[in-house]
């Protein structure tokens, strides 16, 4: 494996481009735009996920112990960039894989060996179960309980806003192992097979019209010791580790996707100075995101801790998503308002979803608070 030339980004990119060109007609089945049922779309995309895993391209950048072919995580960044350049819609599975995979690979070796290969190849999908009805930005307030039992653990509680939950078979859950008052100190991260008795998943329809999220009720669900990710009571550290990757590779996938939308918009024709300025504004916002999160991806791939700096990435991500769709609104207002074909529907779904970009993964107000306190030295907010 050490002799594999594709472990270098240059040859990997060249090889991937050649493969994409050869597979051209087959890959058209996953091209932009696309709209409609989340579950149907997700399952349709599993075809591409399986294809990329079987051909090996999506295994690069993951450790051999996790079913990967080795190499730097930056190879995965190349994969997402090149798929978007080819006009292919990135499977939503990869967004979750990039958020949850690195944590499991780093802190749960048994789980990584048994479950991560299946996730990478699309056989078994996971979702992230952190938020609760009463717990959004204030993650340390969560109440879902993980109690020890004679055969391991028992999970009871209610998780919400699990992205793509209705299409998945497992969940990475942040739960409380400490006292109710223990805040961030008494938390543990655990992997749960959603087919286990006691798990009840219900879709949540978003204003996009899609079941973007799910809520999951856990009623005394049996969980084994092997399912613990990181240390018992070390869940907060595990969550902070994971959040870095959400700002890194997740953001990178989004910039790839947003660039792809601009490719389509520009190819459709740009008419006059107002539209030119709209394209320029959108492009500048996406460039800003791309530049910043590329650095974060590189830092994470090198094993560095990025800390509060990634709050900047998060603000740039929300800004880029909303700027692009606001400008696309200007460039394709007729499709947005009255178009009932794929183009109009996809544009509306994307426009509505972009409004959530400043809410999920830590609201933009919280990011600004972090920047102010930890990057600008403005001290703590009074009252806290």
């Amino acid at each position: 494996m050490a002799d594999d030339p594709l472990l270098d980004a240059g040859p990997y990119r060249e090889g991937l481009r050649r493969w994409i060109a050869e597979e051209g007609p087959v890959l058209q089945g996953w091209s932009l735009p696309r709209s409609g049922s989340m579950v149907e779309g997700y399952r349709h995309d599993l075809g591409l996920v399986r294809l990329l895993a079987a051909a090996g391209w999506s295994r690069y950048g993951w450790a051999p112990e996790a079913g990967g072919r080795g190499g730097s995580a930056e190879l995965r960044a190349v994969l997402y960039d090149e798929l978007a350049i080819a006009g292919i819609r990135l499977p939503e599975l990869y967004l979750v894989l990039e958020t949850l995979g690195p944590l499991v690979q780093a802190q749960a070796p048994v789980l990584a060996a048994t479950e991560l290969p299946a996730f990478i190849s699309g056989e078994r999908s996971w979702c992230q179960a952190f938020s609760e009805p009463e717990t959004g930005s204030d993650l340390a307030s969560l109440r879902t309980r993980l109690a020890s039992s004679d055969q391991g653990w028992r999970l009871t509680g209610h998780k919400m806003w699990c992205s793509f939950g209705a299409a998945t078979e497992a969940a990475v859950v942040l739960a409380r192992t400490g006292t109710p008052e223990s805040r961030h100190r008494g938390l543990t991260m655990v992997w749960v097979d959603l087919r286990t008795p006691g798990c009840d998943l219900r879709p949540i329809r978003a204003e996009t019209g899609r079941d973007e999220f799910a809520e999951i009720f856990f009623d005394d669900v049996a969980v084994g010791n092997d399912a613990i990710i990181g240390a018992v009571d070390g869940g907060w550290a595990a969550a902070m580790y994971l959040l870095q990757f959400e700002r890194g590779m997740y953001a990178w996938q989004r910039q790839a996707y947003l660039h792809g939308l601009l490719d389509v918009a520009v190819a459709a024709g740009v008419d006059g100075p107002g539209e030119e300025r709209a394209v320029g504004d959108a492009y500048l916002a996406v460039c800003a995101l791309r530049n910043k999160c590329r650095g974060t991806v590189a830092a994470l791939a090198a094993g560095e801790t990025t800390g509060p700096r990634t709050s900047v990435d998060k603000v740039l991500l929300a800004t880029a998503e909303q700027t692009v769709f606001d400008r696309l609104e200007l460039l394709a207002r007729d499709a947005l308002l009255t178009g009932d074909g794929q183009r109009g529907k996809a544009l509306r779904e994307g426009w509505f979803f972009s409004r959530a970009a400043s809410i999920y993964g830590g609201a933009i107000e919280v990011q600004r608070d972090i920047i102010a306190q930890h990057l600008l030295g403005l001290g703590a907010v009074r009252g806290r």
Partner: protein
Amino acid sequence: MDADEREMLVASVHQLLTGTRPDPLGDLGWDELFAAEPAVAVTTVFEEKGRTLATIDSLDRVVASAVGVAGDVTIVHPVPGDHRSPGPAGVVLAGGRRPSSTTAWLSSGGPVRLIAEEAVAWYPCQGIDADLLGWQVTVDEPVEAGVPPNPTTGPAAIVAARRALAHELVGVAEATQNLALRHVLERTQFGHPLAALQSVRHRLADVHVAIEAARTATAVAWAEPDDLAATVAKALAGRAARAATAAGQQLCGAIGFTWDHPLHRYVRRALALDGLYGASDELAGEIGALLAERGHAPRLGR
């Protein structure tokens, strides 16, 4: 150059630019440094120039080098807000070479022309930033002087100028942000510093994000062969400087509004620099037109 050497260079540049010596760039050894490590030279000098509001002729030197002219040639920069005009007007910056025997005339995308002195009319210009602006220049009937530079040097000069100005705008933005930060930490009302208020903190956080976006864009402008990267850097840096100065004007309150307070000098400098070689909103239009021409959205930086 390693991090320590870099830090020492920044300190030397800062000292020279805030001192009283008549030729700071000469004392720095600009010619040698620029020849050996252009990215280090431009990054360091222009960012400090922005931070200190210095008025040295560094932009003229960068442009002259890109065009390939030397000696006593005066550089005329595209008029703020109208960089696409091929003439008849431009500006010479203060601190630059005074009107002399030959002027090098830049226009966006077009060839650089060398114009003889007798064809050029000069008017002192103060405008929004009297320290930065020197003269407005117009030409009625151009009289060519000497051998014109290679036609490809026009676009190359625009790229070099935009990249350098991006660094300077980042410097202005950071210095302005520091003024605002100091003010909100010191000023108290209702028993608390302004810095405790969330709306104040969030405004400054957004300025920080804009500066970071500009900073990473300037790095890409050096690494990326596509000229578009320099235009992106200047646009983002112009926006960062405008965001910082606008935040400063709001958050520094009444005292910030006075002539004696340094803030308005940064506001003037930000507006003037943003206007040179394409203001950020104009550049957005130029970028959009370029993307339309290319038929796709280029991925800058790997």
